[in-house]
């Protein structure tokens, strides 16, 4: 039997909410698939569109940007800028035909270990049927 496809996901987590939420998932020993490599940034507002394009270019099968809930941002409003920027990036990627499932955004607070776990589980489940992301990755 062929080995099941394991998507590679890069997750940009804001330090104060989503990364802390993922820490909580850890502290609570919740289990989720190991497909995600987290990159902790200070704020979801600091995630440049270039990071996303670059991750797909470097072979990511999925990219997640996760920040604090609206009104809950450690930096007061960084996540609002992120929301707008990411919406545009998402529309652009979908417009050229990238599967919408491949690029996602979530709000995960420091208290939402359960939610973080669920977001990752769902993400991996949604990516598996799509197979490897070949559209934007650098041909080797």
């Amino acid at each position: 039997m062929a080995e099941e496809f394991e998507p590679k996901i890069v997750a940009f987590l804001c330090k104060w909410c989503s990364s802390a939420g993922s820490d909580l998932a850890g502290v609570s020993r919740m289990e989720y698939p190991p497909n995600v490599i987290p990159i902790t940034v200070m704020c979801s507002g600091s995630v440049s569109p270039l990071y996303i394009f670059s991750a797909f270019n470097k072979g990511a099968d999925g990219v997640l940007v996760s920040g604090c809930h609206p009104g809950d941002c450690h930096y007061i409003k960084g996540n609002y800028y992120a929301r707008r920027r990411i919406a545009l990036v998402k529309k652009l990627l979908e417009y050229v035909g990238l599967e919408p499932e491949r690029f996602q955004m979530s709000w995960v607070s420091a208290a939402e270990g359960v939610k973080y776990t669920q977001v990752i589980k769902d993400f991996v489940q949604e990516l598996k049927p799509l197979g490897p992301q070949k559209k934007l990755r650098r041909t080797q």
Partner: protein
Amino acid sequence: MKRTGVFVCHCGINIAGTVDVKKVTKDLSKHKGVVHAEDYVYACSDPGQNIIIDAIKEKNLDSVVVACCSPTLHETTFRNTSKSAGLNEFQCEIANIREQCSWVHKDMEKATDKAIKIAKSAVQRVRRNEPLEPISVPVTRKALVIGGGIAGIQSALDLANTGFEVILVERAPSIGGHMIQLSETFPTLDCSQCILTPKMVEVSKHPKIKLMTYSEVQDISGYVGNFKVKILKKPTYVDPDKCTLCDECTKVCPVVVPNEFDLGLTGRRAIYIPFPQAIPATFTLDIKHCPGLLPIACGKCADVCEPEAIDYDMKPEIIEEEVGAIIVATGYDLYEKERLTEYGYGKYADVLDGLQFERLLSASGPTMGKVLRPSDRKEPKEVVFIQCAGSRDPELHCAYCSKICCMYTAKHAMLYKHHVPDGQAYVFYIDIRSGGKDYEEFVQRAVEEDGVLYLRGKVSKVFEDKGKIKVWGVDTLTGKDIEIDADMVVLATATRPSKGADELAKKLKIAMDRDGFLAEAHPKLRPVESVTSGMFLAGAAQAPKDIPEAVAQASGAAAKAISILSQEKLFHAPTVAKVNVNLCTGCGMCVEVCPYDALSLKDGKVEVNEVLCEGCGTCSATCLRAAINVKNLTALQVNEMIKAALGG
């Protein structure tokens, strides 16, 4: 090329149980730029730290990655370790392979692979870290306290008594907050006014406290240690120095409006003193309700004022102050009447909220301490207290517990029984939360000594019928339907952040939680600090709390503020934004997005005020030309981290 050392912690079996730490170490030892890789059972232990120190010295390392638990736990530890070996502390980064890896996965092979990628990503990052020194700033040794309730009063007194100057700003004409409205306080039943007024007087007489009532914070700029505040002082049209409190003015004032102090149970004039012990002791002309400031419009109060204290030409003033720390104690308000119609609140005169009932119980209240129904001034014989009115109801109202209601309802019922010994008090409750010193005993006393009837259940219907307020509900313990023909219903209404707190939070740039309460920096470890350094939280503005908790937090906030004000200089994290002026075109987009006003344009280029910058990096994602980056987490570093994360 840097010389990086990688230290992989087993954390006993916490990490080593699911991650093959030997393999991680071996793989990392081959990574470009890694000159030393080692694993150890507990890196944070003394011997563990010594291994790091020795390796730094022996291998001449210039950067360190510790693959261990979350950086929120031991980042400081290992940075200090690195520092003690002569390395700049910012040359140490943490790879979180416990919370984000070993604890959440079971498959050893996959978890190991992930841990390697996380560690490599940290190595790629640290390779481009620059040595940084904390930024120092001088301190303005003065504090601002916003809100003159018990929390604000306590903070102000603590600060002032330590010797620091304090500006206490209160938007109402008098300080005292909600506590001054209360009758007696649980669990000791001492008179609220009796214990509060001495503090209020102390504030008014304190040489270090500048009291600004009828004032509001309009604008704040600056940063920890050096805030600039603009305070709007609204005109009272009465000169407090001249006013003799003779009260002649209120006798001639033709306007009657609901009295806020009695929550509308009584009326007041357009010119008024909120309550007899008000601080400052003076009258205020409420311009919103005054028929007009021109003598032709009315002018009666000025006519009768012998000391000529009334000055219709008084204008709003903006007062600018500089302070080093700010305490926000804006308190609470009760849940709005309009949003709680199901209990007949706002519809029937004899359905009261907790604060109104406090006024009825108060010796200085509208009934001079007698419990009488507002509708017909008769003594109520059957009173129903409904707890959780608006609280713990995520579907319709507030999801949170308002915390103080269980206790004050017990107090209400008890005091009612003291006033009307032949009356019956019923309490509908979901459950009783009486954690606190002597609290549980207090509730028991209400039940056992005062015969308060506690009914576990929810009220389904409240309606008026033939002069009675019918309360239908279910006692879930017996399963029986309950119908009470009550004379009065008292709601333990939910507490909400005080009106306007959200706007203030925006001005102060401090975060709010989802319910609108001000957010603390850490729910457990930093409960009195806001997310903005130099700003602290006290009292019910942060979450519902009772008087002793509010006072404790107020003193805590004062202590935190003192820890800033007592410094010669403050230090600020140096991981701030940095501009590449060659690339900057001065478009100003980063200036617009900066949450801290830390950026400004000068001669067509952006400048960073390093003291204001918190390093969030929103500027860097906004910049179209990558001209601005956060030190030690630059786009280049993230780019390298992405590569490493994807195994490239």
